[in-house]
């Protein structure tokens, strides 16, 4: 026992070396079927963790305990081979391609399955290709890789993209569950994607059901890298590049702006702005001033993989640094990982996975408190700011140019001013890891125990100097500082039993697991009192009494307890059957609704293994069908409890006595629905796996039909209830269905080898029930109604501008927005009359166009198809990867053009005022909004499809015998985009109820980089 403890200590602290246990030395060479040496082949001594890898020429050396040792040779893409050592000391092994990779082991949650036994919709991500991506988060690197998984990335440093598996399901949160080495969590920019060994995506309800109540958005199962037996591998890799915006918006210069502004003023008879009437020579290109095209990107990784007979260790160190294409935003991650495993005695393994990382982010300002400037996005202010305003203007209070009423009317914040007077920094320290034990009690029966922790410590700070960077608005100095931590702990106990009797194979698994959350945070908000000359902003550094000080604290606790099990059965590898069940109890719900049961069953039929099946070209043909129920609960803890509202500040207090002394009151807070329950997805999946020509061509297709029931949404309550708030109610139902196709073609022999992988998918939904009394949910320029998909674009239909001839031909009583249109005014289709007594619009033109009454369903933001296409090839020492991603058949609302062209106090993209200026866009109404020319309409709806070269990488492996591998490469990300969309980025991610409306976020950026990786 002492020895074991000692060995564990050595294992953990010294990375135990394999030489200590070696006895007999053997060596050999591994080749492929073309007699080329195969590097990186894993050679493991069976029933041990001892082994090695072949070097660049396919050679290996290994020590074996005795002659009875069985060597297992395995390499992805080749069939595994087993060989008893016997008296041989030298081995020449030829590996046979196994293109179908049928023996591949897939992690399916709480255990593994052979890929050939899978009966649900489980996608295995090509981790090697994914590793070529320059994105810093796992989520972003999944983009375009998996049929059914859509990711919208952004160029904002350290901000992960928006990911949806099989489309929108829930209104609260559509992030899938991430399971990292068995720990249930979310993705985070803190995690280093270079640590990933494999990723599987559990897409359908039948396979995700093992994660029960947290699985309805799909599950991403990640296994991080482990140590390898044999010669230690030390890999050092580094990439550095520069990023820039892919496009800018073509706005007017001063002369063009003045022409339109003056024309609009003259036309309406109002006074011209002073600085457009007489141009002062100022012509600011704000985008040029703000966007920088040499933002640094840097990624450095060091990893060590080592191992011996009983121990394996993986260690990594990562630093990722990314600047934004605007000044300010920044991401800086330092991450480490240590994964170790130790075989104590035969059948008993213990190990740990641990990552500790710190991510620093600088972002855009978001200063709370009265008098602060709040969240003022630099990018949208940059685009809309007038060219007639200078960046710096000594005549202004703080020296920053800004609007002046009637002179240069702009409500924009000077974007350079925002960057210079505000700072925002966030720091997250993350600890994620587990300790585990795996014990084979009797043959086939394993007990697995794991205890894990997932902690985040954060410290956010925002501050700003006081002053003025906007027309008629002075802002105060201020500081917001928040700190907190969140700690989740997990315990898992699992029993797995495997048994084969003849052609019958069974596995049974039962698990008890529980999870506790404890989080707390504190925040202080101070406005006023800071002196801009004092170079540090600390809570204590005010030099005058602050205007406001708010200090608050919050704690969160939650518990989840689960029992779950899986049973699989297969007969002769022909008939496959899997059943999962999970029962989750969650403190989020009231006692009666706390527990939910999530079952699934699925079956598969391997036709190729039937005796009657005899098609030479088809090497694998499997039909799969599955049904499952999974849950979701994207809502805060304790939402079922009506809380008592009582506080000394902002509470329900009264003042008594003639001099008004405060007395603290208490009353029930916002009204709640005590009966909230799990949201449920019930889904049927039918799939087909097909491999042709010895697996060179593989095809996986799935179709699915799902019903989302009891979706949680907030609904307004009658005012007569006497409470504020909107209770969360399980009230919406939706159908969701779609299809997914993934295809791979590989040529892996000869000098020129290549692989083409492609995927395409489509997800649709339809709202089938909404809460009592509500028949539609509005969103920005969008609507969700029973019978149609969520968030359809909904605006008046723009039909160009009126000519004088058309005006003359109009019925004189015809009005738009209550007034008869004039030549040059916008023309909209008259669709409906007014509301009837039941509140429904009466159909048919009524000679009067109004914004509320004449909107129609004018666009579908759900893409017809989303796709990814990856081509990778090697020729001798060269390798190349070309990766495209795209979306087709989708309508998008160009919010930037809308914002720019529907008010006079921003710059424009359009050509206005036909009456006076010969343009093609509606006349500007300088006097107000009386004629509807400024309406949001189909004028701003564009084809939102795009095809984007996401990644291009060309590498060269330098043959150098001092190292096992040295590769250099150049890489480009987002090199070009083909799209008709005129906004900054067609790859925007809209909100749930307005998915087709560009929220004007941070656009994707182009990164050009070079790098190398070196393995010893």
């Amino acid at each position, binding site marked *: 026992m002492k020895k074991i403890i000692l060995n564990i200590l050595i294992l953990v602290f010294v990375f135990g070396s394999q030489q200590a246990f070696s006895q007999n030395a053997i060596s050999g060479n591994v080749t492929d079927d073309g007699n080329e040496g195969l590097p990186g082949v894993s050679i493991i001594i069976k029933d041990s963790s001892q082994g090695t890898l072949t070097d660049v020429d396919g050679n290996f050396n290994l020590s074996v305990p005795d002659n009875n040792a069985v060597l297992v040779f395995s390499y992805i893409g080749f069939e595994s081979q087993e060989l008893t050592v016997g008296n041989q000391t030298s081995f020449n092994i030829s590996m046979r391609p196994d293109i179908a990779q049928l023996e591949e082991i897939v992690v399916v949650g709480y255990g593994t399955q052979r890929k050939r036994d899978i009966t649900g919709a489980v996608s295995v991500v090509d981790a090697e290709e994914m590793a070529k991506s320059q994105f810093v988060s796992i989520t972003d690197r999944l983009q375009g890789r998996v049929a059914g998984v859509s990711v919208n990335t952004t160029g904002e440093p350290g901000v992960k993209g928006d990911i949806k598996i099989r489309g929108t399901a829930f209104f609260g949160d559509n992030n899938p569950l991430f399971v990292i080495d068995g720990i249930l969590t979310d993705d985070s920019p803190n995690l280093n994607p270079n640590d990933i060994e494999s990723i599987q995506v559990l897409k359908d309800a039948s396979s995700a059901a093992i994660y029960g109540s947290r699985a309805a958005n799909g599950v991403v199962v990640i296994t991080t890298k482990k140590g390898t037996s044999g010669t230690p591998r030390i890999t050092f890799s580094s990439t550095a590049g520069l990023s820039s915006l892919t496009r800018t918006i073509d706005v007017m210069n001063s002369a063009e702006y003045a022409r339109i502004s003056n024309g609009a003023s003259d036309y309406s008879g109002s006074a011209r702005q002073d600085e457009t009437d007489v141009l002062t020579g100022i012509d600011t290109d704000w985008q040029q001033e703000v966007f920088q095209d040499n933002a640094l990107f840097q990624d450095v990784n060091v990893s060590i993989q080592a191992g011996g007979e009983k121990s394996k260790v993986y260690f990594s160190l990562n630093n990722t640094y990314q600047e934004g294409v605007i000044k300010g935003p920044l991401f800086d991650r330092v991450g480490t990982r240590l994964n170790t495993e130790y075989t104590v005695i035969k059948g008993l393994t213990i190990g740990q996975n641990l990552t500790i990382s710190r991510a620093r982010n600088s972002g855009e300002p978001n200063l709370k408190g*009265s008098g602060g400037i709040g969240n003022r996005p630099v990018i949208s202010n940059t685009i809309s700011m007038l060219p007639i305003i200078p960046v710096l203007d000594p005549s202004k209070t703080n020296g920053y140019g800004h609007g002046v009423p009637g002179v240069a009317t702009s409500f924009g914040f000077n974007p350079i001013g925002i960057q210079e007077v505000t700072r925002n920094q966030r720091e997250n320290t993350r600890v994620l890891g587990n300790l585990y034990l795996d014990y084979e009690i*009797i043959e086939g029966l394993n*007990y697995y*125990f794991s205890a894990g922790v997932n902690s985040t410590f954060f410290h956010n700070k925002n501050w700003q100097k006081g002053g003025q960077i906007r027309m008629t608005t002075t802002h105060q100095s201020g500081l917001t500082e928040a700190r907190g931590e969140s700690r989740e702990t997990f*315990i898992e*106990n699992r029993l797995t039993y495997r048994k084969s009797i003849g052609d019958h194979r069974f596995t049974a698994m039962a698990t008890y697991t*529980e*999870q*506790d959350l404890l989080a707390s945070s504190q925040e202080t908000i101070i406005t006023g009192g800071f002196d801009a000359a004092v170079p540090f902003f600390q809570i204590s550094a005010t030099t005058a009494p602050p205007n*406001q000080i*708010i200090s608050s604290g919050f704690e969160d*606790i*939650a*518990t*989840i*307890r689960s029992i779950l099990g899986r049973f699989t059965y297969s007969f002769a590898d022909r008939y496959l059957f899997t059943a999962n069940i999970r029962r989750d*109890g*969650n*403190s989020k719900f009231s006692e009666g609704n706390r527990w939910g049961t999530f079952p699934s069953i699925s079956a598969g039929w391997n036709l190729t293994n039937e005796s009657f099946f005899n098609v030479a070209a088809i090497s694998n043909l499997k039909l799969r069908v599955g049904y499952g129920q999974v849950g979701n609960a994207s809502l805060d*803890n*304790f939402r079922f*409890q*009506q*809380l*008592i*509202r*009582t506080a*000394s*500040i902002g*509470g*329900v*207090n*009264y*003042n*008594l*006595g*003639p*001099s*008004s*002394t*405060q*007395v*603290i*009151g*208490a*009353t*029930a807070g916002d*009204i*709640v*629905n005590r009966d909230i329950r799990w949201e449920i997805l019930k889904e049927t999946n039918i799939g087909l796996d097909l491999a042709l020509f010895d697996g060179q061509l593989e095809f996986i297709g799935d179709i699915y039909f799902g019903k989302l029931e009891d979706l949680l949404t907030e609904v*307004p*309550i*009658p*005012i*007569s*209830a*006497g*409470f504020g708030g909107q*209770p969360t109610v399980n009230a919406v139902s939706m159908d969701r269905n779609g299809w997914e196709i993934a295809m791979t073609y590989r040529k892996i022999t000869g000098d020129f080898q290549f692989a083409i992988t492609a995927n395409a998918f489509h997800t649709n939904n339809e709202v089938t029930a909404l809460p009592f*009394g509500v028949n539609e949910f509005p969103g920005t320029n969008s609507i969700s109604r029973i019978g149609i998909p969520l968030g359809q674009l909904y605006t008046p239909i723009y039909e160009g501008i009126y000519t004088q001839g058309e005006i003359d031909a109009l019925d004189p009583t015809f009005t738009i927005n209550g007034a008869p249109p004039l030549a040059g005014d916008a023309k909209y289709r008259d669709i409906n009359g007014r509301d009837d007594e039941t509140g429904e619009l009466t159909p048919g033109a009524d000679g009067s166009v109004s914004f509320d009454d004449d909107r129609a369903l004018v666009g579908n933001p759900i893409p017809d198809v989303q796709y990814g296409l990856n081509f990778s090839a090697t020729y001798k020492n060269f390798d190349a990867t070309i990766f495209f991603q795209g979306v087709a058949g989708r309508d998008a609302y160009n919010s930037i053009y809308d914002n720019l062209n529907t008010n006079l106090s921003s710059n424009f993209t359009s050509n206005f005022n036909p009456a006076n200026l010969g343009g093609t866009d509606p006349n500007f109404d300088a006097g107000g909004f009386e004629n509807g020319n400024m309406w949001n309409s189909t004028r701003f709806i564009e084809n939102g499809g795009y095809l984007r070269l996401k990644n291009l990488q060309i590498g060269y492996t330098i043959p150098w015998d001092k190292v096992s591998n040295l590769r250099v490469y150049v890489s480009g990300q987002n090199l070009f985009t083909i799209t008709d969309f005129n906004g900054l980025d067609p790859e925007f991610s809209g909100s749930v109820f307005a998915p087709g409306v560009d929220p004007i976020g941070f656009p994707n950026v182009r990164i050009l980089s070079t790098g190398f990786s070196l393995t010893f």
Partner: protein
Amino acid sequence: MKKIYKRILPLSMIFCLLACADLDLVNPNAATEDSFWQTEQDLYQGVIATYDYLQATFDEGSYGLELRVFPQLLSDEGTNEAPWEFNDLARFVQDDLNMFGNIYTGGYRMIGRAYQVIDRAEGISGSQVLRLVAEAKFFVALGYYNLLTGFGDRIPFVDRIQGADEKPMPATAGQLWAMIETYLTDAIPALPLASEVGVLDYGRISKGSAQTLLAKIYLQQGNYTAAEPLLAAVVNSGQYQLLADFSENFRETDQVNPEAVFHVNFLHNGIEGETDNSAHWRFNSPSEIKGHYGDVQSTNFVLNSFLQELDADGNQDPRMDRTLFWEGSSLLMYGLTHAGWISAAEPANPDVNHGYYKYNESEFVGSSQDALRSDGGIDFLVWRYADVLLLYAETLNQNGNTAAAYQYVDEVRVRSNMSPLSVVAPGLSQADFLQQIKHERLMELAGEGIRWFDQKRWGDYGPSASGDHFIPSTGTSVAGDPNFNDPITGKGFTVGQDELFAIPQNELDLNPNLIQNPGY
């Protein structure tokens, strides 16, 4: 087999060692509705929360703003001459059927908070419980009194704590009036006299507050008989008296005001983030300058009514400059003369002529400072003793006892150096006495939001309000508020509709049991 047991046994130990996490967690941030209401102190805090609603502003409309601005604007004492959103409202044009949503919300919020006390008091014992429940019942009655006057009888019938999914039926005619009469009848015996409330509790409901409310509820239904004993009880209680100086009522004195029958405490410069201040003064200004909104101005009808009668010394009614801020005003408002306000208005608005001086905050805001915060600190007297005296006089008159009514009018007039009515107009008929009372109430209470209730209960809430108003004591007539009848522009009072507010459209959307008021 034995071997297996030996191996499994230690495993079962591991299972047992794990403490099973509890799913029944106690919220670490706040007490819950189920755990809170246990003691008399909890009920007291619940009552305080109901008082808190008196101060509410904006979308939670109460005496912090809406219950002062809207009744003024929609009666013949207030108008809006600036070309902004309240201009139409003062002329009975409502484009938005949610226009009165804030008042509606405020009423039901007050009622909702009060029912938490009433319903949760079951099973809680203590010496103060009866009083606390009585206070809560007063608030239910006050909330409904305001709602019924504004929205009519067909508002949702709510008589307990509401759940998230309740869609109450509209009350039947008189149903809620009857209910709140019962509530107040129950509450009055449990409430202390004003003198028993204690200085530190100044602001809490007294017996007189509840008696006055019940009397007002009867009067709003035209029931003078039932109102008389209640008003008599207040007048004869010896608990209240008129201040020597009328204008002291509208200042922050930090003194107990014996004229306050029911008032709302406000605090200037209180804790930031607390709703302990009023926005009233910011909305009541002659024009929109210096951060004031100029949303409510006084009508010419009020101005001209003041000019009809001089005081006992032959001077202008001393209440006039303390009530109105007008061309002839001798006082400054925020450091500016009336002419200063007009010239400072940009763009110059010739229609803006006079506003209410009552409850202005010049003493806090000072002259040079702009009104950047809605931080009014002057306590708002919802009902003053002068109001009660005049109501009592009116009630005696209507009940056929005109002679006995004179003394109470005189008391109010003499305080402000006006000759006693018994001297200037003795022996008025019942009808003329009522007409005189209407004038007296306007002179005493203009700008306090009382007029709207008065017009409604007198049946004067309609086009007739734009006609001439006869004053028996002077024998003169004053032209009424033209906003009530403006056929030229198509604006003005619509008979059959504007007697009642529109029930908010979003409420009708959410509760299909309700029906909109006529005309909307």
